[in-house]
């Protein structure tokens, strides 16, 4: 059952030191910047973060890394033109990096949410990112065995929520949100708007409410969308 949190601070208040957190977004598109900044203010540390990247510029995930709260990051593409906070922490040996090919990252998160114990993927076979992993030839093709990635919390950004916790997303900001929502003990979604039950056409729900524990509309939300897109 979904709870509507009054503030982003309340939404993340129970995230403890040492938690593993799935963080939505591809760069800043779909990144739950306000939830992450509430987490910076909240003070939890020693976190393991799962995200496609390792922060951009000064906001959101970059701010969390800059504040020294992230012990380890699991991602596919840390190195970007504006990932200087990660770069500095990494070179200082202050942050651990587990590099995962982007599709394996998404599929491992899906597997956690879908109750799949492990799966054979062709991606990464014969590369350094498959070292030490079980390989198998199936039907003439080589595969690597990959394990699920689950987490204590997922912080995601969606577009509209209804009071049943159903979510829609906007354009390519959808990216990791729907799979991450399925793979955490507690999923927290920041959204632009909460509508009553029935306010989202059941055919167009992307994340069913069963995967969502808390929804919050950030006070500072400045959504880029046009109203007619809702």
């Amino acid at each position, binding site marked *: *059952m979904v709870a509507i949190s009054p503030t982003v601070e309340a939404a993340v208040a129970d995230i403890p030191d040492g938690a593993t957190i799935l963080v939505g977004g591809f760069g800043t598109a779909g990144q739950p910047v306000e939830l992450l900044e509430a987490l910076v203010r909240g003070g939890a540390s020693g976190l393991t973060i799962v995200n496609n990247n390792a922060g951009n510029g000064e906001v959101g995930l970059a701010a969390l890394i800059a504040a020294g709260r992230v012990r380890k990051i699991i991602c596919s593409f840390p190195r970007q033109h504006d990932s200087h906070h990660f770069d500095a922490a990494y070179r200082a040996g202050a942050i651990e990096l587990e590099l995962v090919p982007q599709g394996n990252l998404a599929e491992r998160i899906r597997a956690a949410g879908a109750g799949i114990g492990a799966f054979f993927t062709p991606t990464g076979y014969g590369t350094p990112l498959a070292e030490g992993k079980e390989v198998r030839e199936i039907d003439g093709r080589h595969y690597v065995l990959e394990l699920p990635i689950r987490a204590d919390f997922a912080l995601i950004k969606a577009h509209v929520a209804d009071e*049943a916790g159903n979510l829609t997303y906007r354009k390519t900001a959808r990216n990791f949100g729907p799979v991450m929502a399925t793979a955490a*003990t507690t999923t927290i979604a920041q959204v632009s708007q909460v509508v009553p039950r029935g306010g989202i056409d059941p055919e167009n729900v992307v994340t069913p409410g069963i995967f969502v524990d808390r929804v919050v509309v950030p006070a500072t939300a400045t959504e880029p969308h046009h109203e007619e897109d809702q």
Partner: protein
Amino acid sequence: MSTLPAVPADPAVPAVPAAPAVPASSGSGPLGRDALAAVVARDIPIGAYVNLGIGQPTLVSNHLPPDSGVTLHTENGMLGMGPEATGDEVDPDLINAGKIPVTELPGASYFHHADSFAMMRGGHLDICVLGAYQVSQAGDLANWHTGAPDAIPAVGGAMDLATGARDTFVMMNLLTREGESKLVERCRYPLTGVACVSRVYTDLAVFLIEPDGVVVRETFGISFEDLCDLVPIPLRLAEGARPGSA
């Protein structure tokens, strides 16, 4: 005992209570199917996501109060299923797992089969309620195949439901028509799932399958001693249980 969920228990849904808020009536005889459905319904926490199997378990929905906030899942791709459709509501594209036309409640959602079973297998459903041929003292379930050589086997979603939900409840008559207990030491029929059942609701008693054995939470119109005579496995009476009179 329940299988380990792939995702730990959802803190937003209260744990299934170990004992009923209100002691069951321990009246004058075995419970009817409808009264038993009411007992199950009372044990479903507010806000839970629930899948009710075909047959007797479907009756449970009649006893969920409107303010229960319980969301019904049907494995053919829907959350927020409403009551059976009647008259003009009937739409052949909107059916439940038993292929009966149903309705849609506000806040419903549709999804495809792989997503629907991922939802179950991933441990997101709080409870599923299933019928059974037999349940073992370890919580093994047999409900899909009698093993008869001339039977056409059909499994449907039973194995996925049994192993996927956080708690699997069984509803059944305790005894076969021949008077044999369907709660057994070891299932004689082909299994649906291993160690997946957490509770067994029957016309004569409610049984909790716990790691150290089977506990009787309440009885209906039968004494604990007489119940023990019917069931060929060791039973313990729960603390505070109110056994019915024989």
